[in-house]
């Protein structure tokens, strides 16, 4: 079980790996598309990498609800519980 802080840090690492964005730019209130300029293909790559890293399943229909980094952190935390 990872804490929300650990999930955020792990997610920031995945986003950095995929997009080159600095990990500290990946903050909870940031929108993946509006603020971080992540397109749908990168988003799916991030989702799949997050599934592997955190041992969770993020259904495709759920991905569109993950608008902000915080949404993703909450979903992953909930799925791990």
């Amino acid at each position, binding site marked *: 079980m990872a804490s929300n802080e650990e999930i955020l840090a792990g997610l920031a690492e995945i986003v950095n790996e995929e997009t080159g964005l600095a990990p500290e730019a990946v903050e909870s209130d940031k929108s993946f598309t509006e603020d971080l300029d992540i397109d749908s293909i990168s988003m799916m*790559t991030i989702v*799949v990498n997050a599934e*592997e890293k955190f041992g969770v399943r993020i259904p495709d229909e759920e991905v569109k609800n993950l608008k902000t980094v915080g949404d993703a952190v909450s979903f992953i935390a909930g799925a791990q519980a």
Partner: protein
Amino acid sequence: MTRKVVITGLGATTPIGGDVPTMWRNALKGVSGARTLEDDWVSKYELPVHFAARCSTPALEVLGRVEAKRMDPSTQFGVIASREAWADSGITEIDHDRLAVAFATGIGGVWTLLDAWDTLKEKGPRRVLPMTVPMLMPNGVAAAVSLDLGARAGAHTPVSACASGTEALHLGLDMIRSGKADVVMCGGAEAAIHPMPLAAFASMQALSRRNDDPQGASRPYDRDRDGFVMGEGAGALVLEAEEHALARGARIYGELAGTSVTADAYHITAPDPAGLGATRALKAAMFDGRIQAEDVVHVNAHATSTPVGDKPEYTALRAALGTHIDHVAVSATKSQMGHLLGASGAVEAVLTVLAVYERKAPVTINLENQDPEIPLDVVTSARDLPAGNIVALSNSFGFGGHNAVIAVRSI
């Protein structure tokens, strides 16, 4: 009045140099880019061929990590060569609606395709990444170059096996002459040093088995040649309407005077032993460029070093140029860098343009006992080409019976 088309930019990443100046220096010196492969898959799959000619500069030393992740290795090479050619052209302002791309490949994203297949088998469909399709599609390299340059007059991918790169120049010339574009980024890219293509080419007896001497393996025209050496990389050339180049005071390397494409319709892989399709291609390119046999001083031959391939090309050269072929300096540069498949025509076009511009013919290595049935004047140490108006030809032939020829004239 047909628009005259000139070459104003060159780029390359190859087994004998990661950029054009390095490649050219080595091409005149005569070096081999072939090496024994250290990859574990060579022994794991018991490949019959243990060597290849990898790019001397890995793509990841040139491209950013994040941009490289979204490209198949073939596209990485293509973008590297295209960027060098674009910078070399000196173009700073352009109407992007008049800029096109003709960037070829023989196989396309074979690494991406097969990696994804491995991932599917080992980890399931969820792990097959969403970039897989745009990375494996053969037009991926033309699309990436178009995106990189903002080229909006069309992005094309000629695919004709080992004639692809030369066919890209044929298409580019046509696009400028017909008024569809003023500038075309032409080229070819290939990255197929993967166990599957190596096994497949070996299976058809196309590859040299000289495992104990990789650097001596590619030996076009030599009596003891036994197949080609797999290479990889990319070449790129900026084609430009002459008036467009003159208006911006560009440095002009030479004129792409004529091109042609023909098909053998003889056999799916074997060249027509009489070289009829190649002869028609040579004659058509010369007709297209209003070139007489006596104008031709240099040929960059296709010459892959296969027992069956090298001779019909000689037959075709003699048929097209007559006895003048005895006075033409012929270079077989695959002896140095191996066979870059769909990129070979583009890289050899770069060498041909430089030969005309610098008036030097590059070197053919490993020619120890010239095949008596191929009595060409082969350049085995760098040779000066004459002053005055000169023309050089470059041939490419591909499985499927594709023949493509370009003619470059000095300015």
